[in-house]
């Protein structure tokens, strides 16, 4: 029973993290039809630069904005330097994928070669090291910050899509790009703002998980891949799907580590992912028909 509670709690925590990554991937996908392979690097920048600010003596809460600015800056620069110049020439999808892979290598290697280095960067949580005990299971106390914050962010994104002009124009672009152009939406500006929103959310996420997972220059790719997993299992570009998919990935990972063994968990997770891709290519909530709400 303890193992199950432990797995469930751990799964909830990591599931919410993956859900946020999946949402960001969906936001960018809907605005640009690009799979953002540099997603994890925005998170990595958020976490690493929060750590850097804390090394200069800033308290955690003041260091978070530094990380957010760094991460969203990377997102904006990526959009400006990599996506915009190529978009006009209408290249095949793979061009974007490989360029974003390139951004992944540049971001992670430049941090690795800088004085920050490749060692894991850890900071203490301001809630202390004492784990929280719930029904015989113990989780890091910092999850008490991460879980509510993640829920607030998800609700915030949901409200943005419902009630703001930016959200509406993103939904319009997602469901029909030329239609959106016809009613006067600047698709290029939607793409830019999608990267900005995605950068802010990712960097914030990176800053939030820093005390739990520690940060390193190579943390990005695994998060990107888990985020893809969540986004695709849920149905690419669907908000509800991204949340469900992300949570499913988190729980799956946690249960496999807890019940089977850490040794084989990784293989099993990737194998499950591959099978899910092959047998549920549109995900749980993805359809070819327009959604009432798309991320």
């Amino acid at each position, binding site marked *: 029973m303890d193992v199950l509670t432990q797995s469930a709690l751990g799964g909830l925590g990591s599931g919410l993290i993956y859900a946020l990554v999946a949402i960001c991937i969906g936001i960018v996908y809907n605005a640009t039809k690009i*799979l953002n392979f540099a997603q994890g690097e925005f998170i990595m920048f958020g976490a690493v630069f929060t750590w850097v600010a804390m090394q200069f003596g800033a308290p955690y809460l003041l260091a978070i904005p530094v990380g957010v600015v760094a991460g969203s800056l990377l997102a904006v620069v990526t959009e400006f*330097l*990599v996506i915009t*110049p*190529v978009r006009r*020439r209408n*290249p*095949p*999808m*793979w*061009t974007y*994928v*490989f*360029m974003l*892979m*390139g*951004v*992944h*290598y*540049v971001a*992670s*290697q*430049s941090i*690795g*070669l800088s004085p920050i280095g490749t060692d894991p960067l850890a900071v203490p949580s301001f809630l202390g090291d004492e784990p929280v005990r719930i029904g015989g299971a113990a989780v890091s106390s910092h999850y008490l910050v991460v879980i509510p914050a993640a829920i607030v962010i998800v609700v915030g994104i949901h409200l943005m899509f419902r009630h703001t002009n930016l959200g509406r124009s993103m939904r319009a672009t997602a469901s029909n790009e030329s239609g959106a152009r016809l009613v006067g939406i600047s698709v290029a500006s939607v793409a830019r703002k999608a990267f900005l929103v995605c950068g802010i959310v990712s960097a914030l996420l990176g800053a939030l998980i820093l005390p739990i997972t520690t940060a390193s220059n190579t943390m990005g*790719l695994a998060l990107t*891949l888990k985020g*893809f*997993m969540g986004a*695709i299992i849920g149905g690419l570009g669907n908000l509800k799907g991204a949340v469900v998919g992300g949570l499913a990935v988190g729980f799956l990972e946690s249960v496999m580590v807890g019940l089977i063994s850490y*040794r*084989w968990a*990784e*293989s099993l997770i*990737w*194998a499950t*992912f*591959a*099978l899910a*891709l*092959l*047998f549920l*290519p549109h995900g749980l909530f993805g359809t070819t028909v327009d959604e009432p709400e798309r991320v």
Partner: protein
Amino acid sequence: MMLKSISSQRGKTHSESRSRPHRLARPRPSLASLWPGAVLGLVIWVTANFANSYLVSVATFMSIHALGALSILLLIRYAGLVSFGQSAYVLVGAYTSAILTVNVGLGIVAGALAAAAMSGVIALIIGALLLRSSGHNFAIASLALALVAQSLVDRFSFTGGFEGIVGIPSLGQARVAFSIIGVIVLAIFIAVAMLERTSTGLLLKSIGEDEYAATASGFNPRRWRMGVFVASAMVAAVAGSLLAHTLMVVSPSSFGLELNVMLVFMLIVGGTQSVWGALLGATIVGLFPVVLGDFSNLYTLLYGIGVIVVLLLMPHGVSGGFETARRRAWGLLRGRLSAERGGA
């Protein structure tokens, strides 16, 4: 008389084929089109005999990587699929060779053949599942399966776990090994280039470019695609086997996403408009360390910057850029010719 009529006919078809907006490809399996093969044969001979030992080792890895890039190129050209998981078949090839030669005591040739066969069988099983998908689903599913393969060899004890397998026999002294590898790689490239000039090659290219057109012409792309998938896995396995005998040690970390990205980067540099693009790309990327010196930490960063810059300048790939330039030049020439004709 007869000669004259033949030559005039020839002249006619020639100018006809040129004046068409899209050159109609005809199967012409002629050896003349294989001039890159002849040139490269000479390059291999010169390198093996006269280059210094550092260049020989660079050229050895270049050849092996060219073969790996070719396996990805086969999928792109003949199946219209971009794989992020081809490193898994390189891994299968390398580990099969390593286990058979070190633990079982088989000869190198038998080991390499078994590696190709093993990889083909695995591809047959995986392909039955994987070829249900296409586009980015295929790419990510193949990546996920490659991660499975990598973490499995990391865990199993008969594959040596994290440390891998050591003491794999080499092909011989460095120059001999390079000659053998160079000839094998070149032979495979020539075989593919010749295949491309046959009607089967045309069919495969049409499946890669437009699956529906191929289906409408009465072919079953599914079966052909499976064949290409298996062939590509076998080519990757041969590359893996050669790599194992060159490095004399295999470990899981050498067959990850990085390897796959490097191979794809070679294709971005070399282009996918011709089979030889894989070799061109492997050569250019392989020369990085020669030109830049030994900054191995910087390579990954340079790959990243290289990919971005190359694609910024030519979003359709390097040889895509050449192709556009060539078409433009021909278009100009043709425009002038037809204007002259129209005037006359």
